């Protein structure tokens, strides 16, 4: 069981480091924030392209707007809300976590959990 123990220990430590480091990006400047947000927005006039990657008129307008809103001190979720009110949730590549999309977000992890429990049980039985 030495091996298992070692494995667990390593995984645990790695996990900790991972958790600790994933929070370390507080001081983003506006351009980074704009990039991060517009990468997750759909260019409505293009075929499945993000606003960030697109040079269409529409994308240029939205990029300007997002930048301006960030300068005004709006948060990412406020800007998203503003855009959703006008263009619908279709503009968001990352679906909102709301009632309608609950199944979408819960499904992968729920089914994984169920199958894992099922497997552990059937292995125990033997």
């Amino acid at each position: 069981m030495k091996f298992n123990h070692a494995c667990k220990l390593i995984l645990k430590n790695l996990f900790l480091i991972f958790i600790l480091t994933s929070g370390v990006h507080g001081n983003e400047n506006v351009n980074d924030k704009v990039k991060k947000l517009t990468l997750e927005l759909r260019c409505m006039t293009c075929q499945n392209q993000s606003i960030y990657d697109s040079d269409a008129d529409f994308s240029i307008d939205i990029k300007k707007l997002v930048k301006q809103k960030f300068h005004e001190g709006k948060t990412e979720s406020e800007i998203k809300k503003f855009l959703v009110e006008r263009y619908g949730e279709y503009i968001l590549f990352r679906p909102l976590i709301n009632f309608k999309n609950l199944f979408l977000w819960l499904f992968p992890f729920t089914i994984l959990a169920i199958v894992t429990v099922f497997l552990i049980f059937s292995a125990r039985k033997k």
Partner: protein
Amino acid sequence: MKRIIVISPLIILFIICLFTLFYIIGNKDPNKPPSALLNKNLPSFTSKSLFDNEIILTDNDLRNKKIIINFFASWCTPCKVEHPLFFELAEQYPDLYILGFNHKDAAKDAKNYLKDEGNPYTFVGVDKDGLIALDFGVFGLPETFLINEKGKIVYKYMGPLTDKIIKDEIQPRL
């Protein structure tokens, strides 16, 4: 339990086929997403007239009116195609307020365009930097909105209007 697992692929298949069937039958167009503004209130706006900088129109001026709002520009070719249809609408429904927003256009070009093609609009508002279009969720010209007396957006159409669209969608709502 085992039975359920074995039958689930069939159920999933059935659900998928049913929904895609409805999607195809419902004539949904992947390139034309339904408007987020449907059944919402008319967004507030303030716009100068194309012909006279002094005249200003706001959403408050349009209370209790049936309105059709059309976003157009002189550089937009499909707009030219639907243009004559607005004359027909104006003739058929004299009470209808036809509001045109001139989108990202030079005033001179827009005036020439309306001179050549005629002006069916009750009011032509200027939307030079596209900010009004943004509030209406417009992203490709032409787009047309239908607003009822209560100030609710009841219909939106992307692309040039056709006789069929006017007959099937717009007239029943007027």
